[in-house]
């Protein structure tokens, strides 16, 4: 499965467009991490727990999108976009969407 955020794949042709595929997830960290983040607000610096949270969320959302693309028979997702929104304190929604397409086979190596 090829996933990119440009509209074409260099050297490959798009045979069929299968429409938009999406994946989303809402995740939260446990309260302990939230309290630690509160302390960080005094000293500043990176919130590792939240960075991790966003990374997990992104992985999850992308997996869901890829699963959806596979289910309709695509072999690539192009023009992928991310959207993030916060719902409540410590929870974030991550939404990822793209266009599922069928690509031709890669040209034989020169």
């Amino acid at each position, binding site marked *: 499965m*090829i*996933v*990119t*955020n*440009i*509209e*074409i*794949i*260099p*050297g490959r042709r798009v045979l069929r467009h299968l429409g938009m595929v999406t994946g989303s997830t809402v995740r939260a960290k446990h309260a302990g991490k*939230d309290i630690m*983040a*509160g302390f*960080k*607000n*005094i*000293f*500043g*610096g*990176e*919130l590792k727990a*939240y*960075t991790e949270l*966003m*990374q997990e969320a*992104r992985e999850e959302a992308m997996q869901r999108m890829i699963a959806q693309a596979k289910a309709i028979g695509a072999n690539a997702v192009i023009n*992928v*976009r*991310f*959207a*993030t*929104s*916060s*719902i*409540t*304190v*410590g929870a*974030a929604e991550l939404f990822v969407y793209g266009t599922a397409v069928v690509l031709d086979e*890669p*040209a034989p*190596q*020169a």
Partner: protein
Amino acid sequence: MNVDLVVFLALLSAGYVFGRYNERKHFRSIQEREQAMRELLVFSERLPPPQPGAVECTLVVGSCVVAFDYFKSFVAGLRNLFGGRVTSYETLMDRARREALLRMKQEAAELGATMIVNVKIETSSISGEAANATGSVEVMAYGTAIVPRQRG
């Protein structure tokens, strides 16, 4: 009343000292890594320039969440009264953005990419609008890494 003042001043100075120290350290590390990654080009153009030979492309992402320190929040609060540039937050956003870009570059470099195109940077506050919320911003950078295909 007096205790409140002492706590406030303690938080303020802790924020100032540690926040400053962290920021200096972070900027130094950012500059070092930016130097190391200079060879990897990043474009916000939609499509890559024509490539000699076959290439593969993959989505690469980097993100970073940074928190405001107590001193920065206080200074920004003061600045809100008079208006103008909130420099204390500007440096924070700069750090977050450069860190996110660096992490994206790191991911691309591990794949052996020569450039990253169509880079988008997105900023969001993950703490919500609540008054007592932790002030933090998330910056996410993503783009398409162009990896030359290995011959043979």
